[in-house]
């Protein structure tokens, strides 16, 4: 009887230590963040690898999500004679939820895994050890620029996703189906508040950016320096990152949009 209980206990302890280690990891990275200011080139290079290279998938996904919102939204609103609220529906769905969340999930899959794999492979190839013996702190030189690159890139990507999605909804709703263009935009403008909706969406995407990038860096840093180790680490990045985003989204939504 004590077997499973002991196993559960040690599993819980391991998870709690993991959380503790993760927090110390975050603290260590933040403490070394001075390099983001003293050598901004490193950060901008990472913004390029993380952000620019994700733009295509974000734009295409945003477009299709916008199309679907336009279509599905129209079908549902039409039943209650409220098609004119389509613009409002599309915009609010994207700006408050789908923009930050879907972008974060795509980000975890595309940018997160490439970060994890890169760092895991650097570890396997002894590049990080080489840096250490050259008296260069690998956390400062390698991890911190990638952290800030991700934090900067995420809100940009989420805003682009929302914008492209709204335009996609407009294409389907107004151009294809024939919802009144004026009503589409005016209902949207009167219903979407800059501070309550847009700013909160940006705040969400910032939180998600920190979370997903941090998980990706952590998994790469902790990966076992073998092919299997790196493969497992990239899987964990996607799984843990996505679950964290969804969980945090629930929390943030309750905080921001609840009464």
């Amino acid at each position, binding site marked *: 009887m004590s077997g499973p209980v002991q196993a559960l206990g040690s599993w819980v302890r391991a998870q709690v230590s993991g959380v503790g280690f993760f927090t110390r990891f975050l603290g260590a990275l933040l403490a070394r963040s001075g390099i983001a200011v003293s050598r901004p080139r490193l950060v901008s290079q990472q913004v390029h690898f993380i952000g620019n290279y994700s733009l295509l998938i974000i734009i295409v996904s945003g477009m299709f999500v916008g199309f679907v919102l336009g279509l599905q939204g129209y079908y549902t609103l039409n039943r209650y004679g409220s098609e004119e609220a389509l613009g409002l529906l599309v915009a609010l769905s994207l700006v408050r939820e789908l923009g930050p969340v879907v972008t974060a999930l795509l980000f975890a899959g595309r940018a997160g895994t490439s970060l994890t794999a890169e760092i895991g492979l650097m570890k396997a*190839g002894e*590049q990080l050890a080489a840096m250490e013996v*050259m*008296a260069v702190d690998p956390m400062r030189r390698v991890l911190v620029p990638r952290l800030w690159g991700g934090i900067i890139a995420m809100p940009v990507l989420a805003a682009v996703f929302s914008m492209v999605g709204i335009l996609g909804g407009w294409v389907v709703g107004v151009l294809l189906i024939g919802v009144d263009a004026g009503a589409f935009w005016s209902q949207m403008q009167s219903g979407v508040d800059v501070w309550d909706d847009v700013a909160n969406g940006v705040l969400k995407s910032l939180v998600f950016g920190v979370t997903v990038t941090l998980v990706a860096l952590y998994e790469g840093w902790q990966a076992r320096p073998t092919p299997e180790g790196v493969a497992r680490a990239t899987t964990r990045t996607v799984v843990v990152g996505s679950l964290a985003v969804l969980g945090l989204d629930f929390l943030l939504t309750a905080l921001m949009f609840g009464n």
Partner: protein
Amino acid sequence: MPDHIPDSPDLALSLDGVALGYGDFTVLQDINMAVQAGQVVAVMGGSGSGKTTLLRAATGQLPALRGQVRVFGTDIGQANGDTVQALRKRMGVLFQQGALFTDLNVFENVAFPLREHTRLPEPEVTARVLDKLDAVGLRAAAHLRVAEISGGMSRRVALARAVVLEPELILYDEPFAGLDPISMGITARLIRDLADRLHCASVLITHDVQESFAIADQVYLVGQGRLVAAGTPQTLSDSQDPYVRQFLRGEPDGPVAFQYPDTPAFRAWLAQQEGRKP
């Protein structure tokens, strides 16, 4: 066999009664070594004898369980972060796989220590990097990406990177492993040349007898968890110790047994295996 290492300021690296291990597991004990400036010292031993562990102790990555590891006179195991960093800037390390930074090209790899630790103007950086690449014969390869060069070439680039700051102590981790005879000869000559030109101390971790004996001033042989022999290459060649003879002659059987030792775990597995036959 040296019993105690005197505290000479001339010593680039000294190990005094050092024991090394991981957790409860002791890999090496009672290690005494001294490396002077301008000397080429070979640390030899079979696979798993703990040579890489010694390297890690010398760079400060692994603190000694017992004894003192002194780099330029300072105990690196006890030193604080800043002191360790300062000591490491005076060292160069050549890793077995080269450990080049794959996202940079050859030039940027060799320039890396200069960019991180100095404020030299760009033309000066270019001049020094090309000079070091020239010394290893790869000046015209500066523009190539890491993926475009062969294993032997990447080892040489790593060597150029290790010496670009003109360190006082260079550690080579298996510099001859996996190289063709020409590359081996080149590498051995480079190591000796650098030691003579820069007057730096060079420590080779290796199991290649022929090449290292040709260039080493002093040889230490580790095995079975301890220092088995120490002396000039000539002294070791003349030694009658059975372990030394087996190692130097490459005999398959001797103090290092050929057959893996029998264990109860193996016998249990064998019984299970044979029980499976129909």
